[in-house]
């Protein structure tokens, strides 16, 4: 998300549902990062972050320091998974850009957490552009350093079929999927991060899930061409 870009309305209606999600995750056995785990499911803390970012925009710099302490672990994870060699530099850059842009945060448009990941997304996109010496292209930035991510999956001894299925996903779908799986963002937050409407993000995520189910669940007869299901269930 560009820091000043509006997010979808309704982002503020998460209420106590995070707690339920956490229970779901526990049951599914998903390993959460300590930093995420400690942070996740704590509505008060998310509300605190929104308030702290707002306060920092009005001159309370101490509030911004609290944000740095609260969210650095999660933001560092975002970079460490995608660009480990420069993850600390990118994290520092993210906070400097977030500080510079803090007055553009509007809690009515989305959470501080989603906003900060949006800044991180932009920082990663800038880095990738510099590394590739390419000019910005119209439309949303795609920050999917697949080679690095694929090496991570390889190192984690991920099943080859799953790796292949992820590799064959459209870049935008894969990026959204990783944002909700690894960064534990909500679909709306993930949408805000990449700068697309929440409905579009949900549609792509459902489609990605459909593709993965098709690839990984159904036997694939030789010569069969897989088609996207567009599963919107």
């Amino acid at each position, binding site marked *: 998300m560009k820091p000043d870009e509006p997010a*979808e309305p*309704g*982002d503020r*209606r*998460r*209420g106590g549902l*995070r707690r*339920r*999600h*956490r229970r*779901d995750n526990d049951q*599914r*056995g*998903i*390993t959460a*990062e*300590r*930093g995420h785990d400690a942070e996740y499911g704590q509505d008060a803390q998310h509300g605190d972050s929104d308030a702290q970012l707002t306060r920092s925009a009005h001159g309370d*710099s*101490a509030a911004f*320091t609290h944000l*740095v302490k609260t969210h*650095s672990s999660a933001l*560092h*994870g975002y970079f460490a998974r995608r660009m*480990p060699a420069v993850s*600390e*530099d*990118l*994290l*520092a*850059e993210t*906070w*400097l*850009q977030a*500080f*510079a*842009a803090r*007055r553009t945060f509007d809690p009515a448009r989305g959470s501080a957490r989603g906003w900060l990941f949006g800044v991180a997304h932009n920082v990663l996109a*800038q*880095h990738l552009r510099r590394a590739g010496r390419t000019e910005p292209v119209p439309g949303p930035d795609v920050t999917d350093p697949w080679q690095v991510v694929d090496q991570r999956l390889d190192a*984690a001894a*991920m*099943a080859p079929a*799953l790796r292949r299925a992820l590799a064959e996903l459209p870049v935008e779908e894969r990026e959204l999927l990783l944002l*909700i*799986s*690894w960064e*534990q*963002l*909500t679909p709306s937050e993930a949408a805000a991060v990449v700068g697309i*409407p*929440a*409905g579009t993000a*949900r549609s792509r995520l*459902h489609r990605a*899930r459909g593709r*993965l*189910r098709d690839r*990984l669940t159904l036997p694939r007869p030789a010569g069969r061409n897989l088609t996207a299901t567009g599963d919107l269930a």
Partner: protein
Amino acid sequence: MTTYDDTEANGMNERGALLDFPGADELATAGHVEPLSERALARVLAEVEAAVATEGVAGAKVGVATVTPIRRQFGRRRALIGLLTTAAVATGVVTYANSGATSAGTGTHSEARVNTASVFLDDISTVAASQSVSSGKYWKMRTTVGDEYISQSMDEYVVSGGKAAKKGRHPDWQLGPKDLDWNGLNQLTTDPAKLLALLQTPPRPKSISPFDQASSLLTESPASPKLRAGLFKAMAGLKGVKLVGQVKDSTGRGGTAVEFAEAKSVGQVIVDPKTSAILEYTFTWTAGPSKGKVTHHTVLSAGFTDKIG
């Protein structure tokens, strides 16, 4: 609005549903990374605090908090407020709300302490402590005027134009009542409170300021990472040390500056928040016959080596 807006009310249940495919757990596990180190967090905090201070300086000077992000290549820090800050720093009369003396070694941040030099220096202390320990026969400094070597017996050599020349004995480093050679540094306490007490002892004739004593040790001595960490914390406890913010040194490298004003002069060090290295020490006469005279000591790199040249 889309047909999916209604599902937002389901919050994270929806997320769980979207991750309901074979291998989702495996994917989540593959995303595990090592937690952020304390050193890395300290570095980030130091940079943010410098940015906050920079804005404070510019805001104080112009009465408006105008912030513009400037994107640069990594390895060089960026100034959040370009020309305004440069102008403010160049005047040498920047004032910044500093709480003054603070207790060294607490390592905790309260809201009242944020923005102060002591918070920044505490964080830099953590960065310094995390640097790797090394050793060698000589301490080498590459400066803008040539290469300088200090042997363990305090002999000083200068290499200029490819030729090495012995310059004599390097003066001992002063720390309050102590004159320290290489061995003396190795035996010196690293406790911040004790170092601060040494710095704050009554000055001897011709003593340099406590800030300059600490700066000199941090800039041009083979002090260990632990000693440097202690010195940064001790410096944090000196009354009158001010955080200037993000600046550039005379070679264009970005860093964070702290300064200390005396009756007729100002000493300033520019610290690299990434490594805790001192990039440049600047001494400026602010009064007297030499008023306006500025001296830079710029260190391009420093470290141990076993041979000269």
